[in-house]
C-alpha cells in the first residue's frame, strides 16, 4: 500500500514534470501567438479550494466550457477569448485581492465570479474603483444595484416569493417555518418573506424563524421543534434558506424522524442538482426546491446544452444547475453587448448591456433590465428518487428581477435604473438618487 503510494507519487511528479514542460512550451507558443493575434481576456473568480469549492468549482468549469464553445465559433469580434482563472480560496478578503489582480495585472475585460453575498460585497469597491464588469450568477437577497455588477441569478421576487405563493395556493399552507443559516442572505430573505406573509394575513404566532450556524450537523432539536410546530392542526411548511453542506444532515434527520413531504413539505432555495448528488434522495421524495432552471426541463436548448456539457467534462453523469444557467445567460449577454458596441471598453459595454436579450435554457428569452437584473421564469420542482426535480408549477411568463424588495419598509420606494436615472437606488417618492436601503 505504502510502496504503491510512493510509486504513485513518483510517477505523478514525473507526469507533472512532463505536463509542466509541455505547458511551458505551449504557454510560450500561446504567448508568441498572442502577440501576433490579440485575445480578449475573461476573468474567472470562483473558489477552487476551501468551503465554497463544493459549489464554485463547477461554475469555473462552466465559464471555461462557454469560452471554449465561443472560440469554436470564432471568438468575439474575430478575437479569441482567453480565460484567466484565479483561486480566492473561499477567503472573502482574498476575493478583493484577486479581483484587483485580475483587473490591473491581467487586464481582463470582464469577470465572472463570486457565490456568497459576502464575497460579492468584498469585491464591490474594487470593481467600482477600477471600473470593470462583474457577472454574479447566484440567487441572492437583493437590496443592491451597482453600476459595475450584473446580477444574473434570482432576486427574492424571482424565487422566494413565488415559492411561498405556490405553497399558499396549492398546498394550502397556513403555518410557516423559516429556517436558515445565520448570515446575510437568509436573514434578508426571511425578513422579506416575513413581511410578505404578514401582508397576506399570516399571524405572528404562525411563523417560526430559526437560524443555525454554518455547517450545522446536529439537527435533532430543530427537526423535533418543526414537528411540534407542525402539529397545531394547520398545514405547515418549511421554507429553507439553509446553505450548502448543512442540508445533508438536515434532510437525513427529517427522513429519520419520519417527516414526509406529504406531512410537512420543505421548500429549499439553495438545494439543487449538484447538492443532491451527494445524498440518498429516496427519503426526500416530494420535498421542493424553487429555481429558475432545472436539469430535467425539456427544451431543445437545454438538451443541447446538457449534451455538450457532459461531452466537455467527459462525464456522462455530470449534472447541471441553476447558477450554471445564469452564467450561460450572462456570458451570452456579454458577448452580444461587446459585439454590439464593437469594443470591450467597460463604460461602453455597461451602457450597452441593458436591453440585451439572450435565450435561457428553459425555452424563453431573458432580458437585461435597467436595474442590472434579468427576467427569468420561476419553477417549483419536487425531488425525485433519482436526485432530479420534477417541475410541478411554473410562473406563466418571465418575472422581472427587483433590485429592491417591495415588501420591506426601507426599500419599497427604491428602484435601480442605470439607463434613465443613472442611479442604483433612486427614490421614486422623493425623486432623489441615494435613498437608503435597509
Amino acid at each position, binding site marked *: 500500500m505504502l510502496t504503491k503510494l510512493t510509486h504513485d507519487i513518483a510517477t505523478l511528479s514525473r507526469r507533472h514534470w512532463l505536463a509542466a514542460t509541455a505547458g511551458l512550451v505551449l504557454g510560450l507558443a500561446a504567448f508568441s501567438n498572442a502577440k501576433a493575434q490579440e485575445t480578449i481576456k475573461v476573468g474567472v473568480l470562483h473558489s477552487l479550494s476551501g468551503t465554497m469549492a463544493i459549489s464554485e468549482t463547477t461554475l469555473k468549469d462552466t465559464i471555461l466550457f462557454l469560452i471554449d464553445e465561443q472560440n469554436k465559433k470564432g471568438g468575439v469580434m474575430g478575437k479569441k477569448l482567453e480565460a484567466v482563472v484565479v483561486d480566492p480560496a473561499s477567503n472573502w478578503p482574498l476575493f478583493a485581492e484577486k479581483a484587483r489582480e485580475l483587473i490591473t495585472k491581467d487586464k481582463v475585460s470582464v469577470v465572472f465570479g463570486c457565490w456568497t453575498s459576502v464575497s460579492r460585497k468584498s469585491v464591490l469597491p474594487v470593481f467600482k474603483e477600477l471600473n470593470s464588469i462583474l457577472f454574479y450568477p447566484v440567487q441572492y437577497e437583493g437590496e443592491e444595484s451597482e453600476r459595475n455588477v450584473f446580477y444574473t441569478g434570482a432576486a427574492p421576487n424571482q424565487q422566494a416569493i413565488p415559492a411561498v405563493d405556490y405553497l399558499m395556493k396549492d398546498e394550502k399552507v397556513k403555518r410557516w417555518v423559516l429556517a436558515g443559516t445565520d448570515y446575510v442572505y437568509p436573514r434578508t430573505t426571511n425578513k422579506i418573506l416575513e413581511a410578505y406573509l404578514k401582508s397576506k394575513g399570516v399571524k405572528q404566532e404562525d411563523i417560526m424563524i430559526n437560524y443555525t*450556524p454554518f455547517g450545522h450537523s446536529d439537527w*435533532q*432539536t430543530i427537526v423535533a421543534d418543526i414537528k411540534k410546530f407542525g402539529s397545531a*392542526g394547520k398545514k405547515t411548511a418549511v421554507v429553507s434558506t439553509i446553505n450548502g453542506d448543512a442540508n445533508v*444532515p438536515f434532510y437525513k434527520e427529517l427522513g429519520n*424522524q*419520519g417527516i414526509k413531504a406529504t406531512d410537512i413539505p420543505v421548500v429549499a432555495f439553495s438545494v439543487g442538482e449538484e447538492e443532491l448528488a451527494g445524498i440518498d434522495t429516496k427519503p426526500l421524495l416530494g420535498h421542493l426546491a424553487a429555481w429558475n432552471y432545472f436539469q430535467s426541463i425539456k427544451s431543445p436548448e437545454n438538451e443541447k446544452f446538457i449534451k455538450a456539457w457532459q461531452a466537455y467534462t467527459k462525464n456522462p453523469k455530470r449534472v447541471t444547475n441553476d447558477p450554471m444557467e445564469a452564467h450561460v445567460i450572462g456570458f451570452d449577454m456579454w458577448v452580444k453587448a461587446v459585439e454590439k458596441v464593437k469594443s470591450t471598453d467597460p463604460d461602453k459595454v455597461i451602457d450597452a448591456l441593458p436591453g440585451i436579450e439572450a435565450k435561457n435554457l428553459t425555452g424563453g428569452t431573458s432580458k437585461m433590465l435597467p436595474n442590472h437584473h434579468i427576467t427569468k421564469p420561476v419553477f417549483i420542482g419536487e425531488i425525485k428518487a433519482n436526485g432530479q426535480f420534477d417541475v410541478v408549477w411554473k410562473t406563466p411568463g418571465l418575472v422581472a428581477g427587483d433590485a429592491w424588495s417591495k415588501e420591506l419598509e426601507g426599500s419599497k420606494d427604491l428602484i435601480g435604473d442605470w439607463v434613465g436615472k443613472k442611479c442604483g437606488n433612486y427614490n421614486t417618492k422623493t425623486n432623489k438618487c441615494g435613498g437608503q436601503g435597509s
Partner: protein
Amino acid sequence: MSANFLDRFRAVLLAILLAACFAVPALAGPFEDAVAKFANDDFSDTDEAIGAVATSGNPLAFPIISALQDGRLSADPDTKQVFVTGADGKIIDAATGAAVDKLPDNAAAVRLNNRLRRAVEAALGGLTLLSPDPAKRIAAAQSVFKSHDENALPVIDGALAKETNKAVKAAFAEARAAILLYKSDATELEKLEAVAVIKARGDQEALALLTGLGSDVPPNVARIAASAIASIQSDLQMWSMVQNAWYGLSLGSVLLLAAIGLAITFGVMGVINMAHGEMVMIGAYTTFVVQEVIRTRYPDLFDYSLLIAVPLAFLVAGAIGVLIERGIIRFLYGRPLETLLATWGLSLVLQQAVRTMFGPTNREVGNPSWMSGAFELGQITITYNRLWILCFTLAVFVILLAMLRYTALGLEMRAVTQNRRMAASMGIATSRVDALTFGLGSGIAGIAGVALSQIDNVSPNLGQSYIIDSFMVVVFGGVGNLWGTLVGAFTLGIANKFLEPVAGAVLGKIAILVLIILFIQKRPRGLFALKGRAVEA
C-alpha cells in the same frame, strides 16, 4: 394467394371486432373513464381519478393506486391507455385488467405532487384496512386517522367488528374517533367519546387533530377538547424534557467520539494536534472507499460495510498518525507553538490532498438498513443511527480504557507520560511508545470518522467542524484524564441541548463557549484535574 388475403382480412376484422368489444365498455363505465383521466398528465385530473378509482369497488383499484404510489403506473398520452407494471414486471391494462406484452414507446409514468401523494395515501388507507397483514392494517388505520375521510367509516366499522388483534383494534378505534370528531352529522355523544379516545392516544398527531377542530362543534365538545389539548400539551412538555436529555446524550456521544482520540494525543501526550480533525475525515473517506468497493463488487455485504470500515479506518488513520509523529512531531516536542503551526499546516495539506483525490463535492456514504429509521419510545422519537453511535462510542471508550489499564503498551504509555526519564531508565523505548501513542490517538479519530460519516457530510471540511469542539471537550474535562473527557462531553452535550430550544442554535453555542471560558478561569485544569507530580512533568 387470394385465400391467403381473405384469411388475413378475416383476422384483421376479428381483431377490430374484439377491440371494439373491449373499447365500448371501456368508454361507457365510470371506472374506465376515471382510469383514462390518469393519462391527461394534469394534477387535478389525476386527483379526480384517484378518488373515483378508490371508491369504485373495482378489484383493480388496489393494484392501480399502489402502482401509482410506487411510480409503476404509466400512461400513453395519445391513446389515453393506462398500464400497471406489477412489482413482478408483468404489465396489465389498468382499465380492463388484460395482460399487455410491452409498454408503448411514449408511455410515461403518471406524475404525482404532494397533494396527490396525500390523496393516494388516504385512498390506500381505505383499501388496505382489510389486508391480512396486521402491520399493514395498522398503517392503513394511521393514514385514515390522519385523513379522517368520512368515506372510510363504513369499512372501519366493519373491520372493527371483525378485528381480533388488540393493537390493530386500538388503531381502528382511534381512526374511527378521528372520523367521528370531524363528521358534521355525528351526535354530541359520539364526538365526546371520540375526544376521549384521541386524548388517550396523547401524541402530537392527536394534538394536531384536536387543535385543528373548527368552531362549528357543540360547545360541550369544544370545552372537553380544550381540556384534552391542555392535558396532552402538559404531557408532551414532560416528554420534551426526556427528549432533550436524549438529544443531549446523543450529541455528547458524538463529541466524545470526536474528542477521545484527542484526549490521547493532546491529553496524554501534550501535543496540540490541529490535524486531529483530518484524521476523522480520513476515517470517513475510508468508509466511503469501503462502501464503493462493496457497491461495485459485493452488493450483498452492504449492511456490513461499517463493520469492515472500522478496523480499516483505524489502520489507515493510525498509520498516517505514526508517519506524522515520526516525520514532524518528534522534532517539535516541548515547543507547543511550533507544533500547533506545523500540525495546522498539515491539516490544510491533508484537506487539499483529499480534495484533489476525491473532488471537492460531498461523497455519498449510505446508511446500512439497521441504522436507518426510528422507533417511538413513549412520546419521543429515537433514531437508530444516533442510538448505535451512542453504543459504539461507549464501547470504544471502554476498550480504550481497558487497553491503557491492562496491556503492556498501555502500561508503557502511562509510564512515559508520567515520567519520561524514569521510564527510559527502566528500559522502555520512549520514542517508539510516543509513535505508537500518537498512532493510537489518530486511529481512534479514524474510527470516529466511520461513525460520523453516518450523520454528517463526507467532505474535505468534515474534520474542521469538529476540531474546536474536540479541544473544548478535552480542556473542559481535564487534560490527561479519559474519565474527564467522558464527563465533559456528556455535560456539554446535554447543556447544549437544553439551551438550544430556549436560546436557539447560534446563541446556545455562544453561551456554551462563554460558560466554558468562565469555568476555565475558575478551574484552569478542567473538571478532573490531575494531581501530584505528573502535573509538573
